[in-house]
């Protein structure tokens, strides 16, 4: 932490972190056409936050993305997922039956596509929020170990 001991690390990370975040969103929104999806993208976005906190310290990270916000995102993702299920119920289908979302004729795929995109957003939020919450819980704990133990 003293001086510019980690100057190269900081400069590289500053350039790299936005690219990692962009890649996370690419993985998410391209998940139907290539490997990827909500789980992977959520983890990559959480890794962005973790990388930032490893290099710039945990306190500035917690100011940028507060622990409460991370927990809110995690809960919101789960609610979005369940919400799609209830949307399908309200439209007269079964729970999470995407074909019922817009009451389409058989052969229409709008409901399936919409359902998959929305629940993937729910997965993204829930996974990213939970992973950041878990990391904050570990990183925010005060260490009781002295340096000689290393």
């Amino acid at each position, binding site marked *: 932490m003293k001086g510019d001991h980690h100057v190269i690390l900081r400069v590289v990370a500053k350039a790299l972190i936005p690219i990692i975040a962009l890649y996370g969103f690419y993985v998410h929104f391209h998940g139907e056409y290539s490997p990827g999806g909500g789980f992977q993208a959520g983890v990559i976005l959480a890794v962005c936050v973790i990388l930032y906190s490893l290099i710039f310290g945990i306190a500035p990270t917690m100011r940028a993305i507060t622990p409460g916000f991370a927990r809110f995102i995690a809960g919101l993702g789960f609610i979005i997922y369940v919400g799609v299920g209830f949307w399908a119920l309200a439209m007269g289908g079964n729970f999470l039956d995407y074909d019922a979302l817009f009451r389409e004729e058989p052969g229409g795929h709008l409901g399936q596509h919409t359902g998959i995109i929305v629940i993937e957003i729910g997965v993204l939020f829930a996974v990213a929020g939970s992973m950041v*919450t878990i990391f904050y819980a570990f*990183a925010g*704990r005060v260490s009781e170990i002295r340096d000689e133990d290393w």
Partner: protein
Amino acid sequence: MTGFEGATLAIDLLNITLLTILFVVAIAIARLRSLFAIVMLSGIYSLVSATWFVALDAVDVAFTEAAVGAGISTALFLGAMVLTSRTAKAEKGAARIVPLLVVIATGAILIYATIDLPGFGDPTSPANTGVGVEFIERTYPEIAIPNIVTAVLASYRGFDTLGEVGVVFAAGLAVSLLLGFGERSLGASVREEDRLNALKKDEEKS
């Protein structure tokens, strides 16, 4: 798509190489005592197995393993290590022999069970007929997206995935209940610092 003898040979060599690396890493983990080295090697193990998943055509699984196993798990292990200890005690005497015997017996039983298993890459094996083929055939007419894994994950097995998301959310909740955002955590002190700074600014203004 079949018929490249050279390609299968290359894949066989790749399999053997990657499995050898996995073995070396696993034995090193078993023998080492420095937890930092062990955690780093477990990250390497995940990364190498992700490479093997690509060779086995499981690209989505490889992606997840690389992001989760090598990324998040390693960060979590390091975080927990900082809070606990740096070295593991060497296991000694009976603590080494008895588990070895148990493990050898279990391994022998499992290897005996593999004799009945279908061969590696067998297209007619029970696991590879039936519902898996159904998913491949139906994904295009019913869902019309190319990635079958996403289609099965999000649509056919959507209720299952809802459960998984619930587990992840519950785990996040459980960890923050166990470790807390209370007075001992940094979250509270950061908030306190911000409050004091804001107070100072107000005083300067007035």
